């Protein structure tokens, strides 16, 4: 009973530099941050935990700002939410976003005892807080104005009273950076693939080794779904995006270009290319089937032949 009274006194202590609307901000952010923290430990997906931790950190940043620590509020947003949490998300993406905790307890009764311990610990902290004679808050107004502002006051302390700790911090940061580099470094166990190895592998795989025909080769149209024409006049499906090529047939596209049907349009193109490459215009161009296979076998060979004729 007396402890409750003392706790009530501690909670009712006056604050010298109370901000307007502080009560509303505190209760809103306290509820949000507590719920987010609870969600953080109950979410199964690690990414959700990370995002809820961001909520907690941003709420705390706002609470720092309310309590006369604007510098710390910005450091909280920039360093914690910006850098540390992004590092967490980076590692989560590397490890795998879909990684979830299994719900099987490996130690029997672990969750129950953790909950009991938490309640006991919270009761201990609450009793300590209730018994402490906190008294009235002095407020930071005077301390913040001593050097002309919060940042100036912190700088005076950091480079005056705490300069040795500050220097030790720089050594710590350098050590941490070096440690991370050493830990993340991996020795190569196999030699790096040279260009020759890559080329040999490409030919061994049996696929088309060269680059695919570009859509600009004897192109007569600039639509993405219109195939390039090979030197012998046959259209090559390989120059079209595979998604578009799989969805439709070349001959059924662009019926509106020339002539009555799409076959007329294609025949017109083929004839035009033949005329350029010096081949005789044969009327049965539309008998040629659309080449959907590899141009390496038939297309390139006949293309080379027609170029040879053009040269003569």
């Amino acid at each position, binding site marked *: 009973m007396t402890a409750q009274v003392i706790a009530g006194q501690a909670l009712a202590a006056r*604050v010298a530099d109370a901000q307007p609307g502080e009560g509303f901000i505190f209760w809103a952010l306290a509820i949000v941050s*507590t719920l987010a923290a609870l969600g953080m430990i109950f979410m199964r997906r*690690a990414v959700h935990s990370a995002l809820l931790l961001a909520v907690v950190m941003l709420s705390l940043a706002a609470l*720092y700002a309310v309590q006369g620590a604007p510098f710390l509020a910005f450091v909280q947003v920039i360093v914690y939410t910006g850098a540390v949490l992004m590092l*967490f998300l980076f590692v989560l993406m590397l490890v795998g976003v879909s990684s979830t*905790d299994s719900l099987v307890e490996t130690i029997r009764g672990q969750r129950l005892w953790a909950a009991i311990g938490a309640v006991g610990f919270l009761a201990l902290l609450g009793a300590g807080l209730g018994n402490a004679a906190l008294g009235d808050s002095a407020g930071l107004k005077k301390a913040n104005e001593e050097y002309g502002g919060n940042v100036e006051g912190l700088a005076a*302390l950091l480079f005056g009273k705490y300069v040795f700790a500050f220097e030790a911090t720089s050594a710590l940061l350098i050590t941490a950076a070096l440690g991370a580099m050493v830990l993340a470094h991996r020795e190569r166990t196999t030699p790096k693939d040279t260009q020759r190895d890559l080329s040999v592998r490409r030919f061994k795989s049996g696929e088309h080794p060269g680059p695919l025909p570009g859509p600009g080769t004897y192109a007569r149209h600039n639509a993405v779904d219109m195939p390039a024409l090979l030197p012998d006049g046959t259209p090559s499906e390989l120059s079209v995006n595979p998604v578009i090529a799989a969805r439709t047939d070349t001959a059924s596209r662009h019926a509106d270009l020339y002539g009555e049907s799409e076959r007329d349009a294609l025949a017109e193109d083929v004839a035009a290319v033949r005329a350029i490459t010096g081949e005789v215009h044969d009327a049965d161009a539309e008998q040629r089937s659309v080449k959907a296979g590899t141009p390496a076998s038939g297309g390139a060979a006949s293309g080379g032949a027609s170029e040879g004729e053009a040269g003569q």
Partner: protein
Amino acid sequence: MSPGHYLALSAILFTIGAVGVLVRRNAIVVFMCVELMLNATNLAFVTFARQHGNLDGQIIAFFVMVVAAAEVVVGLAIIMTIFRTRRSSSVDDANLLKY
């Protein structure tokens, strides 16, 4: 708002973080819970700085942030190394030092 309210919030957040460290088994989530505990202590530091009317508490909170940043860098590098060799980030799987 009296300092007691902020300290109570700080205690609650610290406890939640401690429970997370005890219960969760994904090493990265355990690490995030440690960060939550550090943040809760920072709130207590800032509150006490206001209570006493000087900026020393804010300086200590600043140092806590610096140390936490260094700790996260090294810790996540260790987690990545363990994940690379064992293909797992569960703290239960890394029990090689036990025997």
